[in-house]
């Protein structure tokens, strides 16, 4: 835990404040609680937005929304990509070939474009964005896990386990998975950062469904238009997003180091 230090603590704090956002937030993020475009003050720490909603409360709730969408996306990426990647790397053969060519084709498409294809099919909304973000992160995650599994497969202890008669699935579960886990973990943190970034980008582009719901990317899109008169709206959302990505990237780097 000491290895991931400050960034890990920040991510933990973020998660905690997301979980208790309704308790901590001083105001209702959807309600008009003051005059429009008030500058930051003791009453409204980060000011108010175009229709007088409290920006601090919106950043708290928005961060929670970005994080939860990213976590939903991450769960499916890790479960599907992890399982497929482990099998592809461990068993090899036709399955490996098929999965590698498929992920190659997906990697040839920019992840934002994959996400936009999903939204073309499924319409806009938070769940759709989660699916889109998960699918666009899938090929890269699969490739990393596959490479780790291949590396483990070549180790001597795998041969030994086989020699004493362990079944393939047993070896996969008892030996390959635990040894590939550190790689899976750090790739997972990278995938989390990617999913959060993609989710915020899609919200920024206006595919978030409900426009009043607070989300960091959507707040940036809103705040951008009033940046001249009220820079605090975009500034709060943008800084929060950057801090989150900075911490996640740092944790991922430290986990691999």
């Amino acid at each position, binding site marked *: 835990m000491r290895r991931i230090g400050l960034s890990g603590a920040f991510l933990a704090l973020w998660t905690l404040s997301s979980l208790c956002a309704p308790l901590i937030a001083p105001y209702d993020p959807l309600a008009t609680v003051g005059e429009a475009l008030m500058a930051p003050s003791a009453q409204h720490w980060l000011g108010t937005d175009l229709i007088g909603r409290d920006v601090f409360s919106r950043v708290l709730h928005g961060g929670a929304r970005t994080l939860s969408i990213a976590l939903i996306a991450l769960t499916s990426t890790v479960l599907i990509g992890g399982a497929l990647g482990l099998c592809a790397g461990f068993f090899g053969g036709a399955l490996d070939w098929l999965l590698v060519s498929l992920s190659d084709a997906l990697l040839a*498409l920019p992840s934002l*474009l994959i996400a936009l294809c999903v939204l*073309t099919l499924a319409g806009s909304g938070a769940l759709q964005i989660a699916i889109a973000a998960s699918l666009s992160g899938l090929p890269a995650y699969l490739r990393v896990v596959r490479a780790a599994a291949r590396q483990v497969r070549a180790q001597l202890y795998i041969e030994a386990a086989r020699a004493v008669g362990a079944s393939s699935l047993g070896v996969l579960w008892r030996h390959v998975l635990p040894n590939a886990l550190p790689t899976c973990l750090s790739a997972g943190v990278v995938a989390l950062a990617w999913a959060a970034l993609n989710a915020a980008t899609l919200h920024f582009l206006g595919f978030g469904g409900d426009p009043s719901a607070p989300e960091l990317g959507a707040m*940036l899109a809103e705040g951008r238009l009033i*940046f001249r008169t009220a820079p605090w709206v975009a500034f709060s959302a943008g800084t929060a997003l950057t801090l989150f*990505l*900075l911490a996640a990237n740092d944790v991922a780097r430290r986990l691999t180091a």
Partner: protein
Amino acid sequence: MLRFILRRALSALVTLWLAATLAFVALRLAPSDAITLQLTLSGATEQQIAARRAALGLELPLSAQYLNMLSGLLRGDLGVSLVNGRAVSALIGEQLAATLSLALGALIVGALAGIGLGIGAALGSRFVQRLAQALIALLLATPIYWLGTLAIYVFAVWLGLLPSVSRGNSLQALILPCGVLGLALSGSIAQVATAALREAKNAPYVQVAHAKGLPMRLIVWRHMLRAQGGALISLIGLQGGFLIGGAVVTEALFTRRGIGQLLLNAVNGRDYPVVQGVVLLSALAYSLLGAAADILAAWRDPRLRFQ
């Protein structure tokens, strides 16, 4: 060399074919498409909708549609837009110049800034190293639209130097969008450049150059960058995908005309042929750029041809 080029071109073609197939399969799984959506909204009867779909070839069996698409692709025909009935290739052609100049400018900015930052982070004095590393981390964590919002504020609103809305391809209109997209791109280039240069720092040929008494500047430019150039070129070639995704966001940010705007409108209108056309175009750009970069790297360094 010829064999290497052929092999690389073939693998680019296979990737392209797979991407086309994937895009086809995905977009045909659609629950409702633009025609049904449009006509239902305007109150057309079911027969009218069916007639319109048949006229556009959407009622044929899937295998026939697939073959149609592939043969069309070979002829450069990407189908027609479901919304306004114009050829997708013409729609894309109109917007291509704007996006290409944006992407090219960004690639140059990104490569220069990335390699510069990489040199700083790997070879600078202690302070410069720290600074460059912090900058790289910050660049990697800043979404394009946030960087762009700040840049617009500083250069267009505060200093009043450049236009905040970018029209056309004049130098003045291109500086901000290219700069923003290029800087967003430079983070990952800088990361790899740092790693490559750190590795080269302790290599015997660098020690020999030091021992000969060459100045640091010459060692970096004449020796290290040349030796690590192949990896850098291949990496920059791999950024094609990121460039296109980034161009979509950058164009939305600067309300610039281009492929990005075309794509976003098509996604909103569920205009599948247009979305598919843009997806194929970006797969093509990715494969072409990747293949070109690999071939360039192999031309510089014959060892790469046999890996």
